[in-house]
């Protein structure tokens, strides 16, 4: 039997062993106080701004056009915030990455499909990235307390939470694949470029009629 997913509800008809595992997982989350990953967003924004400034200065010094200056800038923002979104599970970073991708599409409409492929890859990464599991664990531990049955089930056996095994502070959490998380992440990342592409198409279409 695999360890129960503490983030889901216990399925109907679960065996006693599964129920116990489920309860233990939830108890670990509740008692060990999982914390969401703390990505230093100010530092990320600061470093992105510094890199953008350097990049812009170099490109402008090389007498490049505005589009040529903006293009790598968007790429830098998209990559930086895309990674923060994927690895750190920071929702607002997905917003920034998507907006940067939209900027890329405005400059290079042909880039839509590669961008969508990139968004899909990042979204798949979100499906297994440990940061998401930690945020969800934090949510689960805060959203609903253990039921009396769950506490009683766990109380039957001693808990041995080995924090040293964990990849970071707090309890070790298995990373559960979540398809709905992947779809949602893809929508967040892909929405802006799709919107930008649709807007460009619509403008062209109305002008062409």
């Amino acid at each position, binding site marked *: 039997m695999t360890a129960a997913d503490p983030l889901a509800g216990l399925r109907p008809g679960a065996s006693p062993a599964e129920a116990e595992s489920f309860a233990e997982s939830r108890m670990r989350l509740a008692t060990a106080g999982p914390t969401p990953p703390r990505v230093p967003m100010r530092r990320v924004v600061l470093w992105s701004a510094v890199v953008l400034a350097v990049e812009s200065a170099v490109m402008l010094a090389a007498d490049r056009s505005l589009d040529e200056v903006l293009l790598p800038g968007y790429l830098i923002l998209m990559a930086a915030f895309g990674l923060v979104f994927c690895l750190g599970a920071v929702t607002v970073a997905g*917003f920034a990455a998507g907006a940067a991708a939209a900027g890329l599409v405005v400059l290079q409409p042909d880039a839509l499909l590669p961008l969508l492929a990139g968004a899909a890859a990042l979204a798949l990464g979100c499906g297994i990235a440990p940061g998401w599991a930690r945020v969800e664990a934090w949510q689960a531990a805060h959203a609903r307390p253990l039921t009396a049955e769950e506490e009683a089930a766990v109380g039957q056996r001693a808990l041995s939470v080995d924090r040293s095994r964990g990849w970071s502070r707090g309890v070790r959490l298995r990373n559960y694949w979540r398809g709905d998380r992947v779809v949602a992440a893809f929508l967040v990342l892909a*929405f802006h470029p799709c919107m930008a592409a649709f807007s460009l198409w619509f403008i062209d279409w109305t002008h062409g*009629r």
Partner: protein
Amino acid sequence: MTVVAPGGASSGPGPRPARGRHAAPERLGDVLVEQGVLTPDQLTEALEQHHRVGAPLGAVVLARGWVTRRQLYVALAEVWGADLAFVDPVDVDEELAHRFPAAMLARETWLPLRVEQDDDGQPQVVVATAGRPSAHIAEEVVQRTGIPRVRQVVTTDWDVQRALRTVWRDELVHDAVQSLAERRPDESASTVFVWPQVAAAVALLAATVTGLVLDPSLTMLVLVATVNVAVALAVGTKALISTVGTAWETVEQVTDGEVAALEDADLPIYTILVPVYREAGIVGLLMRNLADLDWPREKLEILLLLEEDDPETLTAALAAAPPDIVRIVVVPHSLPKTKPRACNVGLAFARGEYVVIYDAEDRPDPDQLKKSVVAFGKGGDDLVCVQAALNYFNARENLLTRMFTLEYSSWFDYTLAGLDKLRLPIPLGGTSNHFRTDLLRDLGGWDPYNVTEDADLGIRASARGHRVAVVNSTTYEEANMAVGNWVRQRSRWIKGYMQTVLVHTRHPWRLLRSVGPRQTAGFALLIGGTPLMFLATPWLYAMLVVELLWPGALVPALPEWLVQVSLANLLLGNGVIIYLSLLAGFKRRTYGLVPFALLSPLYWLLHSVASYKALWQLLVNPFYWEKTTHGLSSHVQVTDVPTPDDGPEPAALPPTTAPPADAVRLMDPHDVPVPPPPSTETTSEDPR
């Protein structure tokens, strides 16, 4: 017992010297044991709880259901050395009664009964109190009547409240309905439009008509451009605020550690107001939903606010025999029949240091009250209200509930968090807003003429220099799952927003000076922009349809650039709305709802339908309260009203073990026999 104010004379036995504080509960306990209503073991346990929680012993034994209210007051009367009386409202001298304000009597739970001759033939005022007879009451009576002799008898708090509701009925209703309108007419929605607003509207209309006659193209340009700017600003403001809120999605205003550090003995009394109208059978549901609240039962007061013209719900509530911490307050009939009016009546009777409103079907997080208390402690003296997040427990029931949940998640998890971070005025949500009771009374309570009294109160609090904050706790409600019901509810909310804007823009400069330009802009764009956005959206869609079907058809009337801007505005606005809904699923990791965000434009069109209904009602029936039907969800198991054959099914609120036997006699205590006069010993015990 007769007590006399300073300078007065006494004709009755004076209070005995007060005993030590620790003697009081033990004395009461001894009396209860002597009377055979409490066992020694129960007394030991109750005393332990009394010392642990810091609540009076009477409250402990009542909360545990070990004694009835009548038994408790019989014992208290003996302990306090006073006579016991059960008050019949018809016995109250109305001329005497109206010298005393109902609000003060409700807060202090006593009332004047009559003037009688004492043994020496001197007049004395008889007062019934549900607390320990005190010099304060005597002084108050002397001050208001000029009669120096005061005889204080003990009665139950329920008797006091019943008499107040009966004898002071008109005053209670008047205070609940007219208090704000009389004290601060500028802050009340009782006047829908003030004359400068009417004049401005007429001038605007006249200018538009004149312009259309003289120069239709220019007028259309100005109109369409204005609408576009307003919509763009409203959508942009919402996007900005929500994005700021998104950045703080894992920030906890109150941590579990801070909650765990609270000691029960330090917790204050908390009052929960539950306004209910035509929701028979809701009491059982209420008890189940509030049963998990982590708060000492002895310090919890639940006021179930029922309407006088709703006997079905009242019957059901009585038959459910709620535990003793639930008090049924029947709100006298009056107009406008709105929830804030009922809440104002409840506020008059509230004894808690803090007060919160829940709907009967609400399921608050167990630690919500404690988190709110911690938030108040951290928030400073200007913090008047803490708003918990609302979300839905039946999100996946149908498409409408999914969309509604996404919208609520976006609003409460991101928009309100953003408003909090930006220190902008926060329009409160319908329930789960926790108040400091004294500050709420100072603010004038809720405006019964405003159909979103909560949003109005949040803005009013900000305008008066107070602050509203959010707390990381959630109350789960029932999402509206029927379109007609949803439109009714939404039209009320939008109408309330319109009322709120009209009220708080009566003196724009005053608002600007009191809250500052940034807050004024935030208020105007969020509260004012929201209805405007909904009203404008169909026109932008109409332009899109015309432009798609008949390309260039609008150009003669409008410049081409404006048509393009309008279409882009519509496109971008919908893009922003979709995107905010996409993000909304992330805070609570309800990813399954996220794809439905793509349907947000359709959902927002439904808002436009409701907004036009709201606008119409604002003009023709501004104070009408569109009742939202609850209990439609299959997740809500509302118990039926028990028939006489069923017998009452007591609703328990753990750890209260059983309902008091006299709970069902709440409304009719006449048959309770008056016990023999008690002894005259006095202690400081008080059941409150």
